């Protein structure tokens, strides 16, 4: 095998805080500790820093600053939007929500909670290429539909959904439209006004910001009940002393992500394609998700006869951080709902590998992965009682 190196290829799970973000955060973890709600200058400084970050996030999305609300991450934003719209429109008899089968759990489990409360959820299917059909959404919309929530880009297979088209349909049908853009922000050009997005969730730690901070865009005029009641922070819409350092970092992270987007994605696309082509030379492998309509940094490949956890542990032993389709984390053996949704049999879904790149990924990293992964797959297959060479 090639000389061992450390390759972090799990940027869809989380990213390293960039130096620029870290440097921007530090003053707010040190001397800039004033509470933004306080009246003295030390508080003012924090308030100004929050305002600046709000403008940066708004600019990145084509929104207005007052349409941006900071949260503790993507999950909170998803919960806030979906539960908020559901509970507020239920009073008007609208108790139907449309989402897709392969959303992130922050959306799916939230919808499941609402279903238990008496809401009706339509889960539109996705194609074998991992794409939602605009037609399906259109047909699913009813008189009593409160919300359509479709993710911008899928976190496992990286497929990019027809968001502008869904936005247009929702606008025409006068239904609110939310997109979980946690994976897309900074990686795909987004303009909430042009794309008719009413609400959007994002998270800092996916774009070299800190963990535990995110934002929710909510188009002006939409009345969303609070998820977290209390103090007057975030225009009284989200209580809690603001995580100034994290929010400042998010402002820098999103600004940098947007500034470098075209170049970065062009470069990542080349590396991604090289990985895909190289790994598909392994026998009994397949690419999951559309090859073109996918995030520039996402590779997701299944290897028959390979168990995901064993694969990941062996890659880790070789210095490669990656993730799999099997939900190791929950201790459950259920294969990824995303991979099942695009039609993969459970056994194959178990043996899939997600490599997600970032601007820190180098060509040497790609070479290394291409040299190590085939050997690891072979080794695991050789240990399997099911695999015949």
């Amino acid at each position, binding site marked *: 095998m090639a000389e061992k190196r450390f390759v972090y290829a799990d940027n869809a799970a989380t990213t390293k805080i960039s130096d620029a973000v870290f440097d921007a955060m530090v003053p707010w973890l040190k001397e800039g500790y004033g509470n933004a709600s306080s009246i003295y200058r030390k508080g003012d400084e924090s308030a100004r820093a929050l305002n600046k970050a709000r403008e940066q996030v708004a600019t990145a999305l084509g929104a207005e600053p007052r349409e941006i609300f900071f949260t503790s991450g993507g999950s909170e934003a998803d919960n806030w939007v979906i539960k908020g719209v559901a509970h507020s429109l239920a009073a008007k008899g609208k108790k139907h929500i449309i989402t897709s089968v392969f959303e992130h759990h922050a959306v799916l489990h939230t919808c499941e909670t609402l279903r238990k409360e008496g809401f009706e959820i339509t889960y539109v299917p996705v194609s074998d290429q991992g794409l939602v059909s605009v037609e399906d959404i259109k047909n699913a919309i009813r008189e009593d539909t409160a919300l359509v929530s479709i993710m911008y880009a899928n976190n496992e297979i990286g497929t990019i959904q027809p968001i502008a088209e869904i936005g247009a349909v929702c606008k025409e049908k006068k239904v609110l439209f939310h997109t979980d853009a946690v994976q897309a922000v900074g990686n795909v050009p987004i303009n909430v006004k042009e794309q008719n997005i009413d609400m959007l969730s994002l998270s800092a730690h996916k774009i070299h910001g800190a963990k535990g901070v995110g934002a929710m865009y909510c188009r002006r005029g939409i009345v969303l009940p609070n998820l977290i009641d209390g103090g007057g922070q975030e225009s009284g819409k989200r209580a809690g002393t603001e995580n100034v350092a994290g929010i400042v970092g998010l402002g820098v992270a999103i600004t940098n992500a947007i500034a470098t987007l075209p170049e970065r994605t062009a470069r990542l696309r080349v590396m991604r394609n090289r990985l895909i082509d190289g790994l598909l030379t392994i026998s009994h492998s397949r690419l999951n998700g559309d090859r073109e309509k996918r995030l520039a940094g996402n590779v997701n490949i299944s290897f028959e006869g390979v*168990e995901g956890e*064993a694969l990941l542990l062996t890659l880790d*032993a070789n210095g490669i951080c990656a993730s799999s389709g*099997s939900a190791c*984390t929950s*201790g459950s053996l259920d*294969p990824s709902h995303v991979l099942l949704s695009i039609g993969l049999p459970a056994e194959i879904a*178990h043996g899939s590998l997600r490599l997600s790149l970032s601007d820190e990924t180098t060509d040497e990293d790609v070479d290394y992965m291409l040299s190590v992964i085939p050997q690891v797959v072979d080794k695991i297959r050789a*240990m399997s*009682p099911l695999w015949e060479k």
Partner: protein
Amino acid sequence: MAMLYSDRVMDHFSNPRNVGELTDANGVGEVGNAKCGDIMKMYIKVDKGVITDVKFKTFGCGAAIATSSMATEMIKGKTIEDALKLTNKAVVEALEGLPPVKIHCSVLAEQAVRAAISDYYTRLGVDPTPIVGEIGDCHACEH
């Protein structure tokens, strides 16, 4: 939450002992549940009531592989009687623990040993059930 496997588990996972097949096995057991992704196949060579050689093949998670490896080490050179006393708990202890969600994987190892011994008796024309008991599936995996 990440796995938090012990160093011992990682050692047995990374360098599994007794991997492979035994062409001269006189007992072979396969247990598990393909649906939940785990299959463990164990080959034993029994000579005068003693397990003189053992190999395994496993399709499964890190814990499955490590417990397979550990279980083979623990029964090699033992009498069938002693091997039948092997519990998943003993394997887990030998591995310096497993995360709670992974305890069920160790059950598979215990079952694989029993299944191989069961096959050994069956080949001899002896009904294994009174000796080995019911083996059953890895119920823990079907939640």
